[in-house]
C-alpha cells in the first residue's frame, strides 16, 4: 500500500462527489428521522413506533428518534404537522378515527384532507373486555343485563369521541340497550377502572386483552375473522352484530414533502411492515397488521371518511 492516506482521501472525495451529485433517492435517509407521537408516552402509538425502531435501523441504517407532542387527543400535533419541514426527516404518527371525527366536531386546527398519511400499518380492533371473574361469561349475558337494567351497564373507555366511545354508541343501538360510558384519561386509566371493579366492563382493544393477560377476558372482537392471538374469542359478526371497527394507526408527513420522497418513505415502512418477526410482535401485542401504502391511501381514506362520518352522525357526536 503506497500511501493509505491518499487512497483514503481519494475514496472520501469520490464518496462526497457521489453524495453531492447523487440526489435524494440515493442518499435518503442519511441521518436520523424525527418521529413525533401526538400522544403521551406508553400508549399504543408509542409502543408500535418502538417496535418499528429496531427493524427500521436494521433495514435502512438510521435511527427513528421518537418524541412526544401530546394535547387535545392528538389535535395539537396534527394542527402543527404541516408547519414542519417536509424534507423526509420529519414525520408524525396519525390515527383514525380521530383525524376524521375531530375536524367534524369543531375547529381543531386542521382538516382531514390537510394531512398526508403515507402508510397505515396496523389497527387495534375494538373489543369488549371484562374482568376475569366477571359474571358476564358471554356477550349475550352482557346484552341481557343491559336490557334489564338500562343505564346500569357501565363501560370504561379511553376518552370521548374515540374509537372506544363510537363503538359503545354503535353497539348500544345494534343491541337495543342503553349503557353508560365513563371516559377515562387513556387506556391505562380505563384498565384501572375495569380491574378495580369501578365499572362492569370496558370498551377497549384487542391489545388491551393482550396487555391484561389472565386478569381479563374479551367477550367479542370487532373483526372480520377471529384474531389469531385469541382463537377462543368470537367476533361480533359471528354473534349477529355487524361491527367491524377499531383505531387505525399510521404515519403522516408534512404537506411540503415532495412526491418521490412520500413514495419512498411509504415503501420503506411497508418493508418494515412485511417483516415476519415484526408482524409476529405486533400480533402478540394484540394488534392487527394492515398494509395500506401511499398508492392505496386515497381510496382507503375516502372509504374511512364515508364510514366514519356516517357513524359519527348516527352516534350523535357530530351534526
Amino acid at each position: 500500500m503506497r500511501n493509505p492516506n491518499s487512497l483514503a482521501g481519494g475514496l472520501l472525495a469520490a464518496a462526497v462527489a457521489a453524495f453531492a451529485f447523487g440526489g435524494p433517492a440515493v442518499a435518503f435517509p442519511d441521518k436520523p428521522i424525527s418521529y413525533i407521537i401526538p400522544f403521551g408516552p406508553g400508549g399504543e402509538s408509542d409502543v408500535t413506533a418502538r417496535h418499528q425502531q429496531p427493524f427500521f435501523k436494521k433495514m435502512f441504517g438510521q435511527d427513528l428518534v421518537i418524541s412526544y407532542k401530546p394535547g387535545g387527543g392528538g389535535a395539537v400535533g396534527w394542527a402543527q404537522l404541516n408547519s414542519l419541514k417536509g424534507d423526509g426527516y420529519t414525520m408524525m404518527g396519525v390515527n383514525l378515527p380521530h383525524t376524521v371525527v375531530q375536524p367534524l366536531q369543531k375547529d381543531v386546527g386542521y382538516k382531514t384532507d390537510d394531512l398526508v398519511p403515507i402508510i397505515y400499518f396496523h389497527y387495534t380492533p375494538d373489543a369488549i373486555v371484562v374482568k376475569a371473574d366477571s359474571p358476564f361469561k358471554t356477550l349475550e349475558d352482557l346484552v341481557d343485563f343491559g336490557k334489564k337494567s338500562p343505564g346500569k351497564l357501565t363501560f370504561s373507555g379511553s376518552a370521548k369521541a374515540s374509537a372506544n366511545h363510537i363503538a359503545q354508541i354503535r353497539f348500544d343501538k345494534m343491541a337495543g340497550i342503553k349503557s353508560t360510558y365513563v371516559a377515562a384519561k387513556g387506556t391505562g386509566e380505563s384498565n384501572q377502572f375495569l380491574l378495580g371493579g369501578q365499572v362492569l366492563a370496558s370498551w377497549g382493544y384487542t391489545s388491551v386483552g393482550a396487555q391484561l393477560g389472565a386478569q381479563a377476558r374479551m367477550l367479542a372482537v370487532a373483526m372480520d375473522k377471529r384474531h389469531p392471538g385469541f382463537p377462543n374469542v368470537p367476533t361480533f359478526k359471528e354473534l349477529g352484530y355487524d361491527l367491524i371497527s377499531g383505531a387505525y394507526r399510521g404515519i403522516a408527513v408534512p404537506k411540503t414533502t415532495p412526491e418521490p420522497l412520500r413514495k419512498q418513505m411509504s415503501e420503506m415502512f411497508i418493508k418494515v411492515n412485511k417483516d415476519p418477526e415484526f408482524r409476529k410482535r405486533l400480533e402478540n401485542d394484540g394488534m392487527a397488521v394492515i398494509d395500506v401504502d401511499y398508492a392505496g391511501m386515497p381510496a382507503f381514506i375516502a372509504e374511512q371518511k364515508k364510514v366514519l362520518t356516517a357513524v359519527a352522525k348516527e352516534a350523535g357526536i357530530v351534526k
Partner: protein
Amino acid sequence: MLGIEYLVDALTPTHLLIALLGVVAGTVIGALPGLTATMAVAVLVPFTFSMPTASGLIMMGAIYTGAIYGGAYSAILLNTPGTPSAIATTFDGYPMAKRGDGDLAITIACIASVVGGLVGAAFLLGLSPPLAKVALAFGPVEYFWLAIFGLTLIASLSEANLVKGLAGGCLGLLLSCVGVAEVSADIRLTFGSQTLLGGIEVVGALIGLFCVPVLIDLVGTPERHLKVTGESRGFRLPEALAIAWRGKFNLLRSSLIGTFVGILPGAGGSIASLVSYSEARRASKRTERFGKGEPDGVQASESANNATVGGGFIPTLVLGIPGTPPDAVILGALLVQGVRTGPNLFTEHAAVVYTFIYGLFLATVLMLPMGLLIGRYAYRTIVTVPKAMLVPAVAFMTIIGTYAIRNSIADVVMMILLGVVGWVLNRFDFSPSPIVLGLILGSIAERGFVQAWVLGTATDNVAGMFFGRPISLLIIFFIALSLFYPLLARRWRLKQEAMRVE
C-alpha cells in the same frame, strides 16, 4: 423467598456500572430545570434495546431514581423544582440556602432520597401484589377527594396568608381549565388560539412561576445570590446524619406516604411530597420553623418523592398500569421487549423482575456517594459563579428545558409570561406553589368529579357515590382534619395559656 437468588445476578460489575451511570445521568438531568425524569427515561430507552432486558431495566430505573433526586438541587439552590415532585423541597430548601446552609440542605436531601428510595423499593420487593389491589380500590371518587385534599393542604400551608394562598390555588385551577377539558373534551379558554389547545403545560408553568422571579430578582439586586460562609465545610455529613437520625420518624412516615401515593396511578410525586411535608409540619415540635429553613421539611419532601419511584412500579409491574409518566415509558419499553406485565410477572419472569428490583436497590444505594459528590460540585458552582454568568446560563437552560417537553415554542412563551406574572405576584406576597399545585390538581379533581358523577347517576346513587365509600370517607376525614386542626390547635393553645395566666 423474595427472589434472593437474583440478588447475586443484580450485583454484577456490569450492572454496577450501568446503575452508576444511570444514577449520575439521571441526577444531572433532573437537576436542570425543565428536563424531567420522563424525558430522561424516554430519550435513553432506545439504548436499552441492545441490552439484555434486566440490564436495560436497571438503567432506566437508575435514571428515574437519579432524576427525582436531582430535582432537589435546583429546588434548593434556585428555588425552582427540577421536577414537579420537588415543589415541597423549595419551601425549606431555598430558605436554608439563602442563610448559608445550602450544602447542608443538599446533603440532607441526598440522605432522605436514599432512605425514601429504599423504602419504596422494599415495598415493591415484598408487597407488590397486595398493594396493587389497594391501588385498584381507588376509583374516580377517591381521586377526586384526594385532589381536594391536596388543595386544602395548600390552604393550610399558606396559614400566614390564607386568602392569598387560596387565591393562588384558584388561579391555578383556572389555568388548568385552559385547553381541552378533561372527559368532556370541550374546548375552553383558548380564545380561538391553536396553541392554547394543548393547555398550559405544568413544567413550563412551574419554571415560569418559580424560577423567573428568582432570576429577575437576581438581576435587580446587587447582593450575592446565596450567603456564603468563609471556608468550604465539606459535605457536613455528620451534621446531616444527626439531623436525619433526629428526624427518623419523619423520614419513615414520609417514605411510607410517598410509597403509598406512588401506588396510585396518576397521583404523582408532587402530591406525595406535599402530603408528607404537611404531615411533618403538623406533627413537628418546631412547626413555626417550617417554611423558614427547617431541615425536617426538606427531609419530608425528598424521602416522599423518591419513595414514589418504588411505589410507582407496583401498579406498573403488577397491573400493567403505569404509576407515573416515567413508568409509562418503561412499561412501553418492557412491552417491546416482550415482557408481559401482570400478577404472574413475579413468577413467569422472576429473573427479570427480581434482578431489576435489586438493581433499583443498588442504584439507590449508589445515589448516596454519587449524590453527595455531584451535590458538592453543584453547590460550589452555583455559589461561586458570578451572577452575570449564572443568570444567563439558568435562563438558557429553562428555555431549552421548557421547549423540550412538547417541542413547542408556545410553552416557552407561556413560561415567560407566567414568570412575569409570578414576579408581580411575589411582590404582593403571593407564593407560586399554590398556583402550580392548583394547576396540577385541577385536572385530577375535575376528571375524578365528572367520572364519579357519571357513575353515580348511572347507578342512581350520586350521594352514595361521593359520600358512601370507605376510602373516600377516610380521605374526607383527613380533609376535615387538615382544615380544622390548625384552628383547633391554636384555640387549645390559647386556652392553655389563658389557664396558666390565672
